[in-house]
């Protein structure tokens, strides 16, 4: 009987975590979609930091590709 009670308590904890995980993932998916739309409307890059780093790399080594071939 004790084992059963502990077991059902464990099940309840796991069920609750499953719910929390689903809830979190659903919120992230909705927020990410909304953010992507908003960035597109504003004409902003999807990843601002990556965009800036690429621009800086290109500026520092405009002939970077040729160097790699060598």
């Amino acid at each position: 009987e004790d084992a059963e009670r502990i077991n059902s308590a464990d099940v309840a904890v796991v069920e609750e975590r499953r719910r929390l995980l689903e809830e979190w993932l659903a919120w992230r998916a909705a927020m990410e979609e909304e953010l992507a739309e908003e960035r597109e409307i504003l004409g902003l890059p999807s990843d601002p930091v990556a965009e800036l780093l690429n621009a800086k790399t290109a500026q520092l080594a405009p002939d970077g590709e040729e160097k790699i071939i060598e």
Partner: protein
Amino acid sequence: MRPILLAGHERALTQIKYNPDGDLIFSTAKDQQICVWFAHNGERLGTYHGHQGAIWTVDVDPTSTIIASGSADNTIRLWDIKTGKCLKTWDFPTAVKRVEFNEDGTKLLGVTEKRMGHLGTIVVLDIKVDVEAEQSDEKALTIVCDESKATVAGWSYCSKYIIAGHEDGSVSQYDAKTGDLLMNFPIHELNMAITDLQWSQDRTYFITASKDKTAKLITAKDLEVLKTYVSDTSLNSATITPKKDFVILGGGQAAMDVTRTSARQGKFEARFYHKIFEDEIGRVRGHFGPLNTVAADPTGKGYASGGEDGYVRVHQFDKGYFDFMYEVERERQNRLAAQQQQQQQQITA
């Protein structure tokens, strides 16, 4: 987790910041110098000299070209990371407690201290991320905090909102273009100051740390509290780890605030919580005083903490950290892997 001890500061640490690549760590302390370190080996790359008072805050632009700092000498300064040269100084009537660049580095906010005759403010400066450029003297915007002074502030996604944490425990959302106050909610316990505010990578949500012994995960759009992390000590800092769904909290009471040695033990630890389930999952010891600042490596490889003891401790996560998963997380991962396998089989068939 093997830590690297960064010894170089002579006084209490105030803020630690990684650059976006996670290879450099910037640190400020009450000793009037900013340090920059290599994250992988803890070697000190250089220092930035010029401030005439304790330095409260530092931030690095997204391209790791310049840093900004705020100090008790009532200035914000801009520095060339490579040469260590001070590029610009802005003067204010009071100390500057927090600076932060927006997502593209074109704007910098500064939180100024409240003092007799001066209300606390949040100022916005236009920045040119170019070490040769002439920086503007003019403030682009000034937000006056007449209710309760701001202690921390930052820029949301798309530089749409400025979010501030206040001395009275409330959180505000301002329109970043006009400076209009859009919302203010009593998020933490009344008159328990908010001590830190750090962003998720996409800046859609953030974590606050408070003297009320809790940290909270809050949405930038609605200031909705998503999660609460309850600890047993006053908190000075909180950070969100990328890659894994954890948050790290730092705090602790100063020795003079506690009477018994036993009460002090176990208080100077970085605490790990599961971001989604809110459970405490581990602690990391090391500092000999309260943790004033914690920062997560943006690449997810580790974290750093700065203490009242004057040390920075850098930790690289080991395999156990990355492998750690709750049953329901593993369940989901297995389900996704199975789905992927099925799809691949369908393609090959």
